[in-house]
C-alpha cells in the first residue's frame, strides 16, 4: 500500500548504481519482496510507469522474488510457514513466535547496458 514511496526509493538506488557503471540504460530491476512488506506488484508497476519516465530506467522490467513469511517457535525452535493467519506452531501448538522471514524488501540486482 506504500508503493509510491517504495518505487521512488528503489528507482533512485537503481539509477545511482547504473550511473556508477556509466550505463546508458537499465533493462531490469530485480526486487526481493517479503510477504509481510505489503508490497503489491501491480501497484509497483503502475507507479513505476510514471515515476521512471524520462529516466534511463523508463523501459526497465521489474522482476519480483517473493519470500514467504516464516516464524520460529520460541518453545521448540521449529521454523514454519503460518497458514491462514494462524500463528500456532504446528509442532507443539504454542503461540510464541518470532518472525524470521517475510520482512525483506531490497533490490537484489539490476541489469544494465
Amino acid at each position: 500500500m506504500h508503493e509510491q514511496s517504495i518505487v521512488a526509493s528503489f528507482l533512485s538506488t537503481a539509477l545511482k548504481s547504473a550511473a556508477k557503471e556509466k550505463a546508458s540504460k537499465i533493462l531490469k530491476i530485480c526486487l526481493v519482496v517479503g510477504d509481510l512488506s505489503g508490497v503489491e506488484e501491480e501497484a509497483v508497476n503502475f507507479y513505476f510507469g510514471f515515476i521512471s519516465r524520462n529516466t534511463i530506467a523508463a523501459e526497465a522490467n521489474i522482476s519480483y522474488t517473493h519470500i514467504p513469511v516464516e516464524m520460529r517457535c520460541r518453545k521448540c525452535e521449529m521454523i514454519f510457514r503460518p497458514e491462514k493467519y494462524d500463528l500456532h506452531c504446528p509442532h507443539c501448538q504454542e503461540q510464541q513466535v518470532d518472525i524470521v522471514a517475510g520482512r525483506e524488501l531490497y533490490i537484489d540486482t539490476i541489469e544494465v547496458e
Partner: protein
Amino acid sequence: MSVKVLTVKEDILSVNDQNAKANRERVDRHRVVMINVMSSPGAGKTTLITQTINKFKEQTRMAVVEGDVASTIDADRLSKLGIPVVQINTAGTCHLDANMIRGALDALALGEIDVIIIENVGNLICTAEFALGAHKKVMLLSVPEGDDKPHKYPLMFTEAEVVLVSKIDVKPYFDFDEAAFSKAVNGLNPSGKIFPVSAKTGEGLDAWFAWFEDAIAGKTEVVQGRK
C-alpha cells in the same frame, strides 16, 4: 552493447532509515522524547492524545505532529489545547516517513519542547514499515476492530512497545476475546505491554499515564535542569 548484471543488495527503505536516525539524533540533542502513535483509522488516536496532553501539559512542554492523508480536522482539535501542533498532509500517502518528520521538526522550537507525540496516518501495515526516529512506538487497536488483528498484521504488533486496547466502553456489544488477543500479541512480542482503555470514560487510562510518565521522565528531568 553488452548487458551487465550489477549486484545492488540495498534495502529499499535504507534512505528512510538513515533519515530516521538523523531525526533521532536531532531530538536527542535537544533532549526531546518522541513517541510515534499508530493504529487503524478511527481507533481513537486523537482522543487518546488529547487526554494525554491534558494530563501532562502542565508539567511537560508538549507538541504534536499530526499526520493525515488530507484535512486539518485532527490538528484543529489538538491546537485548541494550547500546544504547538504541526500538520503534515501526506497527500494520499498512507504513512508518515522520516523525511516528513524532518520537515515537522524544522517547524518546531525544539529547545522549548520536552515531548513530541506523532499521530501517524491511520493504517496498520505501512506505518510499521517506516521508521521515523521516535524513541517509542505505541499502537491502538479498538475493540470493534476485533481480536484477530495480531494474526493479520503481525508486523505492527511486533513493532509496538505498547498496545492500547481502546474503546473498551463498547465491549459489551462486541465479541472481543481479550485473553486470545493478549496471547497473540505477547506471542509475537513478549515484552509488549497491553493496556485496555476507554479514552471516553477514562477507564484504564491511569496505567497508560503511568507508562507515559516513565517513558518521558528520564529525559524531562535532564531537560528541566538544562533549559
